[in-house]
């Protein structure tokens, strides 16, 4: 049973390289015997896998309904102000990638986001500025 190792392997690759490249998929296919097409299928199915290079810091802003009501749009707006990128984009210096994501279970503390997998809640412009500044330094 190698197939059940595929998710952990892809997770590892995503963490190590920041994305799952075509070369990596071919390599994993040779190592596991799982066809390239199936690996590609899995890699593109899950939203936390990326097949394009990502920035060093991964920001995922929750756009669930509770966060929407608590101002997730303003979070995206202030991130646009400081990073000049929209969801799906990466900054020129490759330091940040921005995505939106589904509910992250912090709906009582919205608006919320994940930064490199860690939760940040009750976001406002001042808080976001401080977070970005810390990532930059």
């Amino acid at each position: 049973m190698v197939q059940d190792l595929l998710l952990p392997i892809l997770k590892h690759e995503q963490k190590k390289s920041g994305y799952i490249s075509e070369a990596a998929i071919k390599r994993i296919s040779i190592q596991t015997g799982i066809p390239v097409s199936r690996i590609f299928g899995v890699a593109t199915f899950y939203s936390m896998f990326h097949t394009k290079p990502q920035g060093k810091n991964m920001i995922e802003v929750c756009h669930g309904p509770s966060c929407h009501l608590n101002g997730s749009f303003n979070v995206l707006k202030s991130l646009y102000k400081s990073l000049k990128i929209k969801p799906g984009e990466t900054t020129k210096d490759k330091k940040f990638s921005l995505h939106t994501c589904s509910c992250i279970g912090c709906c009582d503390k919205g608006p919320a986001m994940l930064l490199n997998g860690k939760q940040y809640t009750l976001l406002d412009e001042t808080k976001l500025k401080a977070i970005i500044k810390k990532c930059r330094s």
Partner: protein
Amino acid sequence: MQILRKTELKAYKKAKKIGQKGVIEILSKKGLVGRGGAAFPTARKWQFAIDTKSDTKYVICNADEGEPGTFKDHLVLEKVPENVIEGIIIAAETIAAKQAYIYLRGEYEYLKPKIQKAISSVLKRSGSKVKIDIVVGAGAYVCGDETAIIKSIEGYRGQAYLKPPFPPVEGLWGKPTVINNVGTLANVPQAILFDDWDPHLRLFSLSGDVTKPGIYEFPMGVSLKKLIELGKPKNPVKAVYFGCFGGCMPYKEILLTPENVCGQNCVIGAGTIIVVDNTHSIVDMAETIAKFYAFESCGKCTPCREGSKRCLDLIAKIQSGKATKQDCDTLLDLALHIHETSLCGLGQTATNHLITALKYFREEFEQKCKLH
């Protein structure tokens, strides 16, 4: 809160003493039903797996709480992970499974160290030989479906498949598998141990336009008004959404039972209550939720894959002011079709929010439309 009472492995010891039959008897007598939303009797589910002959069986703990606006499993995993693990080993030993998995949402990965610690400590203290592994998902709402979880653990795209066969008969790698939700498994040791355990208590996730959001524990049948007043809304409340899939209703007093909520054309599901006040637009809510479904549709069947995108297009048209009232009819038509013809639960419920919004708040949509 009842759910946070610790059982400290006393339930496991009792379960060992009373054996398989005793556990099933106690759980069915006490009336423990699944907390994931379907409310299936837990004892019956386990009995199916017991009755299926096989050397290998599995238990899966569904920690894939993905319904937007729901964060009760999050609370349980954070506060009483040991109870959940105790529930898992009781389940596994009752159905004679040697291996259990916890399928944790990718978005909850930050809880993994805590759960891992609870596993080691419970296994060490109990002496149980059940092997428990955590499988972390990678972001897919559809994986909340039992069959999609199985596919995902097997390493495939987490796409749902048609039942039967039901997992307790033929599940993970074709073997009998019991899949229980975090909340169900946390209740197992409590139901076994405490005489005063109340089967009617549920966790409600209250969020949205309230100043005191959070998890509230009440019996099924609690007053909606009471619950929302505890949340202290800032402005007059206009609507209530039962998560994304449960639909919406105008705010008024009802007692929250599955039947009453169903009477409002909604589904109570896992007790998700999202409050919308009169400063927010229902059309904006519709757009947010439609985006969610267009993104999460797994793509396996046409009505949901194509339909969810078309819904989003139509809502965008309405938002832009270029739509006519006829587009509202088309939207409703489309929503009904997706509801009736989709393959799995995701698609079948993906448009509940639109069907109910167009029933109760149609004027908000029409106000954005051209006159003809």
